[in-house]
């Protein structure tokens, strides 16, 4: 019967007790008239009854003991572990930051050292050519130069303040001569002096 299709869903709702009063009456009336639908209704009702009356199984007697043991083990494991999940990320982040800082400082130190050795030419403010000549002589007498790096593209002398580029050029060439006197076997060719 074509109207059976429309009743199919209503029959299931009727089995589940979900229909309002008026709709329930319609379904009951239809079931009294339609054999196919009443067979479906009976079959579904019996299946539902069988399922609701299946024997429920019990947990094993040691279920709660086993569960408690597993929970205790988890708690003791989490307590023992130093790097607990909540603090793991900050610890790693702190370690990384420390490593970065250490690397930074080491690089900085080595840079400073190399900068000190290649510092721009610094001459005392009251420096004069006569003083320069006497310094040359002093430099000439020195068996070992102080703070001279080989190979180098700039001449370095520690101490003092920087001077103008034109003066510096003159004094640099003079100093170059004096340096070559100290270490005659080496040729120093300054490419440029950086201020």
């Amino acid at each position, binding site marked *: 019967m074509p109207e059976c299709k429309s009743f199919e869903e209503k029959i299931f709702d009727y089995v589940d007790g979900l229909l309002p009063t008026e709709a329930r009456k319609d379904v009951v009336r239809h079931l009294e008239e339609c054999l196919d639908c009443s067979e479906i209704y009976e079959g579904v009702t019996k299946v539902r009854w*069988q399922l609701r009356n299946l024997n429920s199984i019990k947990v094993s007697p040691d279920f709660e003991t086993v569960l408690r043991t597993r929970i205790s083990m988890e708690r003791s494991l989490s307590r023992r572990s130093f790097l607990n999940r909540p603090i793991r990320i900050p610890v790693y982040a702190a370690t990384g930051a420390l490593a970065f800082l250490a690397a930074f400082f080491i690089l900085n130190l080595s840079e400073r050292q190399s900068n000190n050795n290649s510092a721009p030419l610094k001459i005392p403010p009251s420096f004069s050519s006569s003083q320069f000549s006497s310094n040359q002589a002093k430099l000439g007498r020195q068996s070992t130069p102080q703070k001279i790096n080989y190979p180098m593209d700039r001449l370095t002398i520690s101490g003092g303040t920087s001077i103008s580029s034109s003066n510096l050029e003159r004094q640099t060439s003079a100093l170059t001569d004096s340096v070559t006197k100290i270490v005659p076997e080496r040729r120093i060719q300054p490419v440029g002096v950086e201020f």
Partner: protein
Amino acid sequence: MVEEFGSSSKSKQSGARDKKPSDEDLIERFQKGDLYAFDLIVKRYKEQLLNFVYRFVGNQEEAEDIVQETFLRVYRKRKAYKRIAKFSTWIYTIAGNLSRTELRRRKRRKFFSITDMGYEDRDYEISDEGYNPENHVEGVIQEEIIHKEINNLSPKFREVIILRDVQELSYEEISKIIRVPIGTVKSRVNRGRLKLQSRLGYLMKKK
């Protein structure tokens, strides 16, 4: 002092006096550190979860493992529960997910299911409550047949049939547990019932 799980008889005796705490109250207390509240949750849900999972995966031993794992997850993830949903929805969702994972794993392993064995290979546990042994054995056999036919359903029908007709949950709750619209849940329940009816019809006619 060793913390013991409270006995159900104690709760029945004091039931008249004390108002039984709701599941949501218990989980809230547990979230604040009350382990006894967790014990009560275990007592309330262990049997019904076991029956749900057992009907779903078909094996009692595996079902117990899954239920244990469900409670462990509730323990670990207690802070994740928010009161906007029912606690029963949450715990059934966990149990359902674990059961489905086990079925997928089993499918990959091509596990030889005990339900495929013939009747002669199985041990029946005869209950000591039987008055008429013949009727009792018949009842056990019938139950085994129904259990087998439930297992023969595809997982999507099996799950909703168990939740609706064995666990007696509402359509709304089932819809939230399996994350499927209510209409789809109803449709699956009805089709599952019709399939079972066609396979178990001979059993119904015997009675």
